[in-house]
């Protein structure tokens, strides 16, 4: 049996259905965003943890030059090590017939039997390789899918400068390659250009002169073991064998990227819902306050007939609860659906072999509780006022609002502003907090769009700087081993090549005190035109010092080095000697951590004649394919990369996700803008009905009274534009600050197009809301309104 007071509640809500709907939608957006992002994050966490556990993802990873198998015993003796798995890992090229630019691959060996003790494979199709078969390989499933390859197909491979045809016997994934990164770590997953081939170790080791030896190790730690201590011991044990620094699971390249993505997701999962919750609290406050004002006689009646203050207050709080519940139903449903979809997108990107999306109960419950809390915060002031409102006062009409002359009038310039506009501006001035919150609410919608578009702007900027100012070559050629620098001159004579520059890059460990980083030490010619060091502040090339190091500024800061200091540089190949090298300067770069020297200076450091580990070429238009073909035939060419193809690929990858994000954020922002403007408009209309009806009776036209009502809203929207732009810029700074500074140093780059788009969406949403309310103006009951007591 529904009580009479609850029937009143339901019917009041029905009468306010437009406003209820817009508030519920804002609440729904907040809940949906929370549910989507949190549930996706949680599902991702669960799934990767399960994947790592089930498929025995290692704890420590280290690559080295070459060590005899007997060194394995030394590693097993390290305290804290539970299991040692040695293998061979080598980079190869895949000269696919229909590919202008040959993809790269890593060959990872498998033990006899095909089942590695650590880092097991998830076989999707086919079978494992047979022992001793030198022509069989299991291929990374993502790459196979991209290239349209399957079990039984043939795959050409250049193994140690020897071309072979392998038979793909199976397709698999591995916990080590959730985020398959090409060697050197290009920006972004590129499962079309990078593959992993698992092959029988016994069969393939001779091709790399690795019989009885290994160049890659994966370790499992004992529970409770100190990772840092083990890493130190491993580095010590493998140093003489050309070992690069051992890394724990957190720094394993694939897992590192995955962790970053998850962290970003987690940040968004907090920031976005907060925005919506804030706006919903504001809307609840505005609408409830006006409703209470309109229902003063009813409040008085309820109190007069004996309802307690608490009962009357609770009656209005129930309204808020029902609106939030409605938003919750929509939001949880939408959030689960979006979460499922987003999870699928991530599953695709990370190629997790099994991925289960689970909503659970915690996330929806928390989201609803947060929404209630926000709405209650917006309502508590009004409900308290209702409860404290003496019945007698509630029975009296509310006191007329207290207005003041405007500034222009106080300055003696009343004629500057018409009476109608005086009504508008005085109304805004009378409630400065309400006006400010409305402006902030609309501005929040605009800010949401600005932040959302930033990813696209930042990405375009990154591409622009990296590939138009830093890497200006048409082709880059990597060699299997360093070649004499003079050999680069021969490349310049290839038909179609108009310039060739040498690049010498060695892995190095730069230390200062007890801090260190392993970074590429890059040697470039003095007059480099194609590959340059560029400052992100000026976007101009920075000349290399004649001697000494030029460090990425972030690298210098991490190590605590300044120009004039001396750094310890351990070269991690060849003689593996440690040198003390002065820091000549720093450069604020956009991407990565690097150290630079002039080519001759680096050669002196390495005690070798000038050589190149790569070459960058300027190629005439139309000649690229032919040059690539010639390069592939040359000995010691490990890979050839086209800048144009790489840029196109990156743009294609980002374009897909950008469109989805833009669409979702546009809908969110429009919802906020419509929610705030529409509710403000409805409230303004009910507040001003009497005034506007009076004006109509006095002879004002519908258009003239529309201008008064919509003028108030229009002013708020106009004020909201600069507020939203500032807020969006600030939020973008906040987002940028969460990006790992050692990977990227994004400036806050927001294009005029981004701002314009955000402003246009908000203006259109606001105009649509205004038009909806304007229709009600046309239906104003002049006589009825004038008869009400207020």
């Amino acid at each position: 049996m529904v009580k009479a007071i609850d029937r009143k509640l339901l019917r009041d809500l029905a009468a306010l259905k437009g406003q209820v709907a817009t508030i519920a939608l804002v609440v729904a957006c907040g809940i949906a965003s929370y549910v989507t992002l949190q549930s996706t994050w949680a599902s991702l966490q669960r799934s990767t943890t399960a994947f790592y556990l089930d498929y025995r993802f290692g704890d420590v990873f280290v690559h080295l030059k070459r060590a005899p198998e007997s060194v394995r015993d030394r590693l097993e003796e390290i305290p804290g090590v539970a299991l040692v798995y040695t293998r061979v890992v080598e980079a190869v090229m895949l000269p696919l017939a229909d590919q202008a630019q040959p993809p790269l691959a890593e060959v990872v060996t498998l033990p006899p039997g095909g089942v590695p003790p650590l880092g097991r494979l998830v076989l999707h199709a086919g079978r494992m390789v047979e022992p001793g078969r030198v022509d069989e390989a299991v291929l990374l499933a993502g790459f196979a899918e991209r290239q349209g390859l399957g079990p039984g197909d043939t795959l050409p491979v250049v193994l140690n400068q020897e071309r072979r045809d392998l038979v793909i016997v199976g397709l698999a994934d591995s916990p080590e390659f959730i985020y398959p990164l090409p060697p050197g770590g290009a920006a972004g997953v590129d499962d079309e250009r990078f593959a992993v081939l698992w092959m029988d170790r016994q069969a393939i080791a001779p091709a790399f002169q690795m019989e009885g030896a290994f160049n890659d190790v994966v370790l499992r730690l004992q529970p409770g073991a100190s990772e840092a201590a083990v890493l130190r011991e491993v580095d010590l044990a493998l140093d003489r064998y050309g070992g690069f620094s051992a890394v724990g699971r957190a720094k394993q390249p694939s897992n590192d990227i995955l962790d970053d993505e998850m962290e970003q997701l987690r940040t968004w999962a907090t920031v976005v819902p907060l925005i919506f919750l804030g706006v919903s609290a504001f809307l609840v406050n505005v609408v409830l306050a006006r409703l209470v004002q309109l229902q003063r006689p009813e409040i008085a009646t309820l109190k007069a007939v004996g309802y307690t203050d608490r009962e009357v207050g609770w009656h209005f709080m129930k309204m808020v609860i029902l609106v939030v519940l409605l938003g919750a139903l929509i939001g949880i449903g939408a959030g689960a659906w979006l979460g499922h979809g987003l999870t699928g997108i991530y599953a695709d990107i990370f190629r997790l072999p099994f991925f289960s999306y689970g909503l659970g109960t915690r996330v929806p419950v928390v989201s609803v509780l947060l929404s209630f809390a926000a709405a209650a915060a917006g309502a508590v002031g009004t409900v308290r006022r209702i409860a404290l409102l003496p019945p007698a006062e509630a029975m009296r009409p509310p006191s007329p609002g207290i207005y003041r002359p405007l500034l222009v009038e106080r300055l003696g310039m009343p004629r500057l502003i018409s009476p109608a506009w005086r009504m508008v501006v005085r109304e805004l001035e009378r409630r400065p907090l309400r006006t400010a919150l409305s402006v902030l609410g609309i501005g929040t919608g605009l800010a949401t769009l600005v932040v959302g578009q930033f990813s696209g702007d930042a990405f375009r900027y990154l591409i622009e700087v990296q590939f138009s100012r830093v890497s200006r070559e048409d082709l880059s050629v990597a060699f299997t081993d360093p070649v004499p620098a003079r050999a680069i001159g021969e490349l310049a004579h290839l038909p179609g090549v108009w310039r060739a520059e040498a690049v010498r890059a060695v892995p190095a460990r730069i230390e200062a005190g007890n801090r260190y980083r392993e970074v590429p030490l890059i040697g470039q010619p003095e007059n480099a035109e194609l590959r340059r060091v560029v400052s992100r502040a000026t976007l101009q090339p920075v000349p290399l010092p004649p001697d000494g190091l030029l460090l990425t500024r972030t690298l210098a800061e991490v190590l605590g080095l300044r120009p004039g200091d001396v750094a310890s540089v351990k070269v991690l190949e060849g003689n593996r000697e440690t040198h003390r090298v002065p820091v000549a300067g720093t450069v604020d770069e956009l991407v990565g951590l690097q150290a630079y020297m002039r080519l001759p200076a680096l050669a002196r450091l390495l005690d070798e004649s000038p050589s190149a580990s790569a070459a960058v070429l300027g190629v005439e238009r139309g000649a690229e394919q032919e040059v690539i073909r010639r390069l592939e035939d040359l000995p010691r060419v490990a890979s050839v990369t086209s800048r144009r193809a790489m840029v196109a690929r990156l743009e294609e990858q980002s374009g897909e996700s950008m469109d989805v994000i833009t669409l979702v954020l546009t809908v969110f922002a429009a919802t906020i803008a419509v929610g705030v403007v529409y509710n403000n408009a409805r409230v303004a209309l009910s507040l001003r009905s009497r005034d506007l009806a009076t004006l109509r009776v006095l002879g004002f036209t519908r258009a003239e009274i529309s201008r008064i009502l919509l003028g108030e809203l229009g002013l708020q929207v106009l004020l909201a534009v600069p507020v939203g732009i500032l807020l969006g810029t600030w939020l973008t700074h906040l987002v940028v600050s969460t990006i790992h500074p050692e990977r990227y140093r994004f400036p806050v780059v927001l294009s005029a197009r981004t701002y314009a788009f955000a402003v246009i969406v908000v203006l259109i949403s606001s105009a649509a809301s205004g038009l909806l309310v304007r229709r009600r103006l046309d239906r104003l009951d002049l006589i009825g309104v004038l008869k009400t007591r207020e």
Partner: protein
Amino acid sequence: MVLQAVDLAKTYYMGEVEVHALRGVDLSLYGGEFLVLLGPSGSGKSTLLNILGGLDVPTRGRVYYHGGELTTAREADLTRYRRYHVGFVFQFYNLIPSLTARENVALVTEIVPDPFAPEEVLELVGLGDRLDHFPAQLSGGEQQRVALARAVAKRPELLLCDEPTGALDYETGRLVLAAIDTVNRELGTTTAVITHNIPIAAIADRVITLGDGRIVREERHEARVPVESVRW
């Protein structure tokens, strides 16, 4: 004596304007009597009624209900007083527009012990066939009779009516007054009616005239004039 007011004064603010609604009023209400409060607009009638009904507190003075002081009572006690002992009828009916006639009465019967059934009390005021009509579907007189039914459904000891016929035409107003008169006679409810309409005072046992926040005259009637005989 049911209610006694001693030296009541009330000052309140409308925006920036100070209003002295009552300036020292002494008044008593006796069980079962029909009292009319007369006076022009702004004389303090409504303010006095609100204080007697526990809707407002005086700035000065005391009010006693059956010997218990209302003026020092806590808000919860005043609410209980209104809930169980007082029925109100307002000039503009103050019905809840989103509830039907029956539901408006049920609003009160659901929170008190031993009320009349909504149907029963609506029948009493002649609206037995309008139970499920919303206020928008009722005439002014019918709305006021619903308000009256709502006020008496809880079987209150006091019935306080603030200009019950103020918004009604003569015929409708007479109907409403007749209903109030019936309630007073048949249920024995102590009734106070505010009006600015002097002829209406003839139906009362006692008439108190207020002016400028004070009692300016009090007269007792030997016999009450039937409502149907009154003309205004």
